[in-house]
């Protein structure tokens, strides 16, 4: 952690000020939130179809996703 030149001498001595990692964290939060927006909607839609379809088809669909095809 470095405080850079913007910290006042007193602030530097006390270890106060920004951690200088805020920008990256901010951006990470946005990227994951947009990814979750799409993936979450996909999850709910998938569960909806599977819930209507029942257990056997759910297993079949998951096997398709995991292994590509089912023997």
């Amino acid at each position, binding site marked *: 952690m470095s405080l850079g030149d913007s910290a006042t001498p007193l602030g530097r001595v*006390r*270890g*106060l000020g920004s951690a200088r990692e805020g920008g990256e964290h901010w951006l990470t939060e*946005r990227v994951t*939130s*947009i990814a*979750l*927006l799409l993936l*979450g*909607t996909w999850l*709910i839609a998938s569960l*909806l179809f599977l*819930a*209507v379809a*029942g*257990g*056997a088809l*759910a*297993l079949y669909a*998951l096997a398709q996703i995991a292994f590509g095809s089912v023997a």
Partner: protein
Amino acid sequence: MAATKSRPLSPHLTIWRWGPHMLVSILHRATGVALSIAGLAILTWWLLALAQGQEAYTRFAELGTSPFGLFVLIGLTWAFFQHLLSGIRHLVMDTGAAFELNTNKRFAILTIVGSLVLTAALWIFILGGRS
């Protein structure tokens, strides 16, 4: 914290009058926690039940469609939509928009109304399709 002296604190929870934006703010955190804990547990349970075979899956489905099971699942669905819409609100506010008091309040109310409407629509679809 390296500082040992007590630092000044900004006014906190107790002095503010409750409004939609405060409700949506704390709901965003509460629904996020609920989804990541209960949602993950139930999703894992569902996958395990699927993997264990017909008998286990039937037991899971019976529990899921019992009154308490439905209560939990409908609650989680609502938590998902509330978190989703509130998240969209956050993304809009990240652009610097919708900070005007009235716009902000309206947007906050819309996330609550929207999550309730979407939850109702989804479960009417699910339960309507079954009977």
